[in-house]
């Protein structure tokens, strides 16, 4: 983490949140009670019940004294309490859970390795994470106590659902206390009915006359009992109203008369009293209070940036001493009491119309200068100063965050208010990034072009130009132009030297995205070795939320290269790694989304597992091209796999139709072309026109990968060009670095050629070699396609033994998937059905009203009966066998 100035966003603690920003320590602190705080034993006694119920809700109007009550109770508890003050704003559930985990961690709750404590543990809110958290809490002897203050500020409705899930499954291990203005979206009736909830509501929070008298006494005001009662009546016992009336009375010459007059009035309480109290402050203090109302939290320096005067420090300290409006967060950071902040905001807008945007702009500028980028962006957007806001993003080298990472959706939303009137290079860059992320090439390129034109060379624009080349690389990938991608990446290498190193270090996604797009463009052009070099760099990066999507994309591409190299096993394991990540992260679509599934489908076709291939293609289609220009590599490969499946199903016409990817690109892709030609040749061969097929095959300039080359050789042989085919096959077999997908196919070419030449002995020898090799990976397709001549040979004694058990699926062999020997029970089918809906073990248990262990037992026997080891495979196998 880059060293940060403590004066920017408030003191930060170690670790970083999923955005790479340090956690804000102030959000985990149990708020301090002011000197005038009145302890109310009837309420703390009620709160003690929170230790016995899973859920506690302290629910009351703004300024009802909820937070201080719980803070005081927590401080006197004698055991650690995890405290989290929620903030309004753009955080989705990912950020919320990151903060919750950190709050638990800060309170000393041990969490399992890999979750909490490190940003790598928290990608998106992965259900597994919640399940593991609940599991971990469930096993505790003493419950963890978690207070979520200002819970009403959490906008995302799924947060409540997830919280309910964790609470339910944590059992006795978690005591959750929600402090909120509004009723949360949890199934409260259920908790109430089960007496599993402690509830303190507005009515109970209201001050009694005795408590009110106590509060006023702490402000140096002695009131007779009847006066206190009248005041409680007037304010409804509302803590904020009482506190304000005490402050107002304190400042007046005759407090008792003042209060009497106030009691008789009809004004709305907070508004009236606040105006009174603020009105009696010196003008510079009034000005300060009004201006800082646009900020969530502030230190003296930031406040001074808004007032333009150098006196904020003593003024704030003074306000804090008087206990008026300003709350001390520690380390010279303050915030306005939320209720008073809102009302002051209204006063600011009334008194100085038009000043608010200017204040936001000043705040944005100060925060930007002090490196607090997220806050600066928020204020820039609030000021609707898009040039400044876009400038902050670009100068921070954070343009890639619009394309990947947890923040992408939030940032997109932040800029959604940007109208066409905004101008400037940074604005155009943001527009280009948004358009390109939606695959809207025309607009993306137009904006990008405008941005490039308006950025003169020079150190001041280096970040802008680096952002340009990042988007260039994406455009190059989407248009299938490797040269353009190469140029962008070499330009980036030069520009990296012109931007500060700490910025680059904070944005690993920049390099990851550049390399990914370069790798993809190279794959398109059939330059597999160079592509592998670029892609491996990203795939080897440590797990990180901002590089997760490019990493997956690279793994998908590497799997594709492995497939073309004829290494189905390696392709499969890489593709599984890529799809595993996509499934668990959900998240936004990325150009290469679904590529992993496509590679798995191709491997399945090669193994003649056609049902599985079809299921995988359907799965990949879920990530399929949305509106806009499709990703060339993904689309062409989708076409290739779909074509292969049709061929395997014996429908060459459909294959030829499917094999033509609808992509428009700068350069053609050798493997995409070769594949289309192969499909066309297959149709012609099926129609009995070998001459025409040979012509089509002759048109293939470069086959694009060894597997394609071997397939072309096979097609040539079928079209009657034996010599050429055998020569190619011989070369492919001796090249050495190719995988069995290539050698098996090439050996088959030679075997068939030998058989056709009447040399059955050589053909048998070659076939034996091919069978031995193919058996390791259950590579069935080439043999099944090999035609009646080879088939006859395979049926003869020595070869028959080598093919038995795996090639024709005519009996359980060592490598073939075992047949379903035992029927699934009804309960197992129910579990399987829920598994297919991607439910977690815990969810299935809850849904079926059984324990987690019971579900695990069912899962084990499902795996055993289906002969698989993982849930994904179980679902797939079940689909193949029509069990779902």
């Amino acid at each position, binding site marked *: 983490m880059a060293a940060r100035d403590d004066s920017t966003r408030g003191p930060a603690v170690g670790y970083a949140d999923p955005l790479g920003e340090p956690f804000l320590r102030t959000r985990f602190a149990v708020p301090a009670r002011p000197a005038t705080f009145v302890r109310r034993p009837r309420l703390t006694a009620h709160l003690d019940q929170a230790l016995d119920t899973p859920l506690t809700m302290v629910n009351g*109007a*703004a*300024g009802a004294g909820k937070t201080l009550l719980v803070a005081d109770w927590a401080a006197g508890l004698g055991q650690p309490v995890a405290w989290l003050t929620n903030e309004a704003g753009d955080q989705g559930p990912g950020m919320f859970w990151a903060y919750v985990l950190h709050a638990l961690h800060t309170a000393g709750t041990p969490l399992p390795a890999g979750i909490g404590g490190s940003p790598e543990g928290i990608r998106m809110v992965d259900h597994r994470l919640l399940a593991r958290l609940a599991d971990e809490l469930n096993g505790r002897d003493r419950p963890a106590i978690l207070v979520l203050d200002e819970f009403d500020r959490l906008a995302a409705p799924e947060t409540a659902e997830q919280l309910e899930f964790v609470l339910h499954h944590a059992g006795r291990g978690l005591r959750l206390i929600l402090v909120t*203005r*509004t009723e949360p979206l949890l199934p409260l009736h259920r908790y109430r009915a089960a007496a599993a909830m402690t509830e303190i509501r507005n009515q109970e929070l209201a001050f009694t006359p005795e408590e009110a008298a106590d509060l006023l006494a702490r402000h140096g005001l002695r009131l007779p009992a009847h006066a206190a009662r009248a005041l409680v009546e007037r304010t*409804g016992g*509302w803590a*904020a*109203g009482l506190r304000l009336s005490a402050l107002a009375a304190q400042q007046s010459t005759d407090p008792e008369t003042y209060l009497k007059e106030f009691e008789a*009035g*009809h*004004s*709305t*309480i*907070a*508004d*009236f009293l606040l*105006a009174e109290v603020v009105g009696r402050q010196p003008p510079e203090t009034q000005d300060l209070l009004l201006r800082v109302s646009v900020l969530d939290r502030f230190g003296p320096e930031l406040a001074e940036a808004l007032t333009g005067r150098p006196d904020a420090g003593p003024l704030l300290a003074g306000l804090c001493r008087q206990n008026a409006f300003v709350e001390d967060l520690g380390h010279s950071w303050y915030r306005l009491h*939320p*209720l008073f902040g*809102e*009302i002051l905001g*209204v*006063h600011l*807008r*009334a*008194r100085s119309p038009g000043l608010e945007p200017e204040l936001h702009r000043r705040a944005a500028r100060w925060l930007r200068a002090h490196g607090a980028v997220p806050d600066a962006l928020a204020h820039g957007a609030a000021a609707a100063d898009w040039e400044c806001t876009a400038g902050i993003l670009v100068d921070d080298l954070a343009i890639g965050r619009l394309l990947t990472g947890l923040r992408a959706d939030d940032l997109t939303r932040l800029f959604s208010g940007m109208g066409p009137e905004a101008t400037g290079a940074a604005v155009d860059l943001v527009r280009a990034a948004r358009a390109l992320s939606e695959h809207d090439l025309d607009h993306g390129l137009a904006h990008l072009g405008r941005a490039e034109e308006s950025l003169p060379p020079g150190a001041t624009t280096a970040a802008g130009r680096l952002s340009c080349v990042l988007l260039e690389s994406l455009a190059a990938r989407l248009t299938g132009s490797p040269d353009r991608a190469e140029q962008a990446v070499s330009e980036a290498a030069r520009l990296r030297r012109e931007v500060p190193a700490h910025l680059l270090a904070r944005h690993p996604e920049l390099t990851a995205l550049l390399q990914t797009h370069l790798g993809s463009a190279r794959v398109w052009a059939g330059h597999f070795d160079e592509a592998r070099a670029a892609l491996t760099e990203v795939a080897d990066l440590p797990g990180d939320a901002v590089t997760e999507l490019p990493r997956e994309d690279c793994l998908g591409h590497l799997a594709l290269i492995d497939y073309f190299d004829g290494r189905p096993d390696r392709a499969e394991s890489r593709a599984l790694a890529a799809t595993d990540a996509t499934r668990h992260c959900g998240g936004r679509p990325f150009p290469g989304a679904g590529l992993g599934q496509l590679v798995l489908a191709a491997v399945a076709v090669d193994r003649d597992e056609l049902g599985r291939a079809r299921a995988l293609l359907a799965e990949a289609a879920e990530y399929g091209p949305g509106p806009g220009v499709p990703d060339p590599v993904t689309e062409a490969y989708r076409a290739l796999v779909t074509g292969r499946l049709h061929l395997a199903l014996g429908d060459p016409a459909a294959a030829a139709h499917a094999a033509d990817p609808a992509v428009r690109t700068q350069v053609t892709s050798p493997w995409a072309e070769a594949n289309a030609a192969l499909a066309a040749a297959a149709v012609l061969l099926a129609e009995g026109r070998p001459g025409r097929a040979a012509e089509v095959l002759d048109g293939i300039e470069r086959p694009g990968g060894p597997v394609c080359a071997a397939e072309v050789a096979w097609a040539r042989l079928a079209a009657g060009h034996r010599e050429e085919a055998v020569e190619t096959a011989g070369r492919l077999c001796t090249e050495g670095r190719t995988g069995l997908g290539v050698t098996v196919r090439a050996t088959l070419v030679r075997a068939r050629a030998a058989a056709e030449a009447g040399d059955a002995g050589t053909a048998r020898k070659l076939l034996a070699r091919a069978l031995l090799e193919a058996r390791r990976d259950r590579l069935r397709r080439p043999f099944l396609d090999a035609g009646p001549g080879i088939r006859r040979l395979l049926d003869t004694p020595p070869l028959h033994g080598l093919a038995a058990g795996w090639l024709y699926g005519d009996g359980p062999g060592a490598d073939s998937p075992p047949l379903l020997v035992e029927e699934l029970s009804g309960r197992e089918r129910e579990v399987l059905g829920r598994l297919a809906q991607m439910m977690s073990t815990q969810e299935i248990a809850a849904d079926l009203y059984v324990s987690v262990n019971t579900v695990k037992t069912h899962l084990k026997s499902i795996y055993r009966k289906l002969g698989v080891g993982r849930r994904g495979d179980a679902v797939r196998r079940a689909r193949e066998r029509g069990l779902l």
Partner: protein
Amino acid sequence: MRYEIRVEGTMSETLTRAFPEMEHVTMSGETVLFGPVVDEAHLYGLLNRCLSLGLRVVEMRRLPE
């Protein structure tokens, strides 16, 4: 649709500016905010605004067109 929101107490001129889209009138110790409400979201927004300004809503009703 048009709504009327009754709030306890007399709101100051300044505070009523927090509801620029509504007209207001004070009567017998209450402030009545009334005016067009675009949709549900707007309605809940208005209630939220009352909540965050410490206003006590006494009554809320939809007005006949």
